[in-house]
């Protein structure tokens, strides 16, 4: 089920701050999308394996060899905030 309270809880989990009007707008839309999702309820899948890779590919590895990292400023040039080579994140507590 998805009422406005559930929606707010999900939004907290997804780290998206919703405005009150968005909650109002999204709730019915999300309920109708859920109705679409629920259509698969009726499929019998007890003996069916889930598809983890569409062609059953498995065991793909690389060898343990070091290759060049990004050069110079490339690693941090897109960071909006930085200091002395570190990327600056928000505070923890």
């Amino acid at each position, binding site marked *: 089920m998805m009422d406005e309270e559930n929606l707010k809880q999900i939004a907290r*989990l997804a*780290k998206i701050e919703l405005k009150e009007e968005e909650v109002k707008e999204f709730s019915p839309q999300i309920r109708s999308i859920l109705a679409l999702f629920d259509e698969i309820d009726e499929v019998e899948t007890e003996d069916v394996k889930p598809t*983890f*890779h569409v062609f059953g*590919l*498995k*065991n*793909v*590895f*690389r*060898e*343990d*060899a*070091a*290759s*060049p*990292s*990004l050069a110079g400023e490339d*690693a*941090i040039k897109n960071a909006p*905030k930085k*200091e*002395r*080579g*570190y*990327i*600056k*994140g*928000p*505070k*923890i*507590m």
Partner: protein
Amino acid sequence: MNNVMIGLEVHVQLNKLKSKLFCGCSTDYQDEEPNTHTCPVCLGLPGALPVVNRKAVECGIKVALALNCEVLEQTLFYRKNYFYPDLPKGFQISQYDFPLAVNGKMSIETDRGEKIIRINRVHMEEDPARMIHEGGIQYSRHSLIDYNRSGMALLEIVTEPDLKSPKEARRFLDKLRSILEYLDVFNGDLEGAMRVDSNISLAGGDRAEVKNISSHKGVEKALSYEATRQKNLLRRNIKIIQETRHYDEERGITISMRTKEGEEDYRYFPEPDLPPMSVKSWTERLKDEIPELPDAKIRRFVEEYGVKENHARSLTSDIEIADYFETVCKSSICTIPRQKVVRRAREIDPNMAASWIVDVLKGELNYREMKIEGSPLTEDKTIKILKDLSSGKITEKNAVEIIREILDNGGDPEEIARRRGFGRLDRSETEILVKKVIEENPKVVEDYHKKKKRALNFLVGKVMALSKGKSAPKDVNELLEKYLCED
């Protein structure tokens, strides 16, 4: 503390690999500038994709086998979804329903003998970035992030709650570390190489999780603090709630971070960018690459060298020390095949070597925070010292002095002994001193003839003082009695 239950989740960095778990960035970043060992993959740049390091999986299997686990037929990477500033993708690639291996066990030595700790699972995951909080985590106005650590291969080793005291927890970690180093997949000296989350509960209470402790000593302290805290609550009839706590290393206390209601919903699902793995068939090959592990080595040391069990245990807790011991013991018999009868041919008694390495050398190394590997006291030097000691060329005190000087300044044992005048005087040299002492102390000699027992002791002391302790006591006694009788 008879009703304490402790379970550990140990995160071990596979820091002997050349590259990270999912990208080719070098793992050799410890002394480097921040964010210099990064690429689109470990920075979580849009569009980058992970590719699994084969060797990391092999290391994981070796550890799993060493912990007597069962490697699963199919193993999958999952995404563990949560937000945190140190997590570049908003999820950690980890494992969940199909971990690498399950159902293992490891024994530890406790005050009441050997005890089995069950291992729930061993799984692989990637390390998040490292954060720095200037001025402390509670006061810092922002976090500084270094992604050099991001994407390092981690193994998470999860125990059942079989540990009954903080001390047992520490024993477990010590033993685990030694196994990992035996397997050559891990260097425990590097910063952040092993990090522990621990669950602790008392009978009748919910469990608390203490997160992210980075030293074995820290684990013991944090758990002791936590056990006492919980006991006090129970005594006052306060209910213990399930919560996550942070260990404040400086203050030695644990602080509440979040309670169960605030617990994350990780929304695990299989990582679609990584096809499933089927690696159980690798185990046969990898088994052959596993060296003799501590338990087996203890048994062999006792049997083959006849050393005491507590010595064997101490020698084997560090593979470098164990190898060092064996090199020292084998030195004198290298031309003779390894047979039991050979023991008689050894120039160095293994028991003596064991006791010197365990009781003296390990202490001197610890005091200097040195490792035996790479120290100036190479095996051949120790062999020389122990041989001279056995043959009476130097005293025990001399041997300790030589070991200390080599550890501090390097040098050759023989040269040090010569320079510092170590070694026994021979009988004729002692004879001169004895004559001198008798000549210079007529009063005491007189006393001796009046059967004053203390007089002999006094003269012995005088001779020893003159020889700076280098005369053999047997020589001194015999010669004194000889010349006093002649008198």
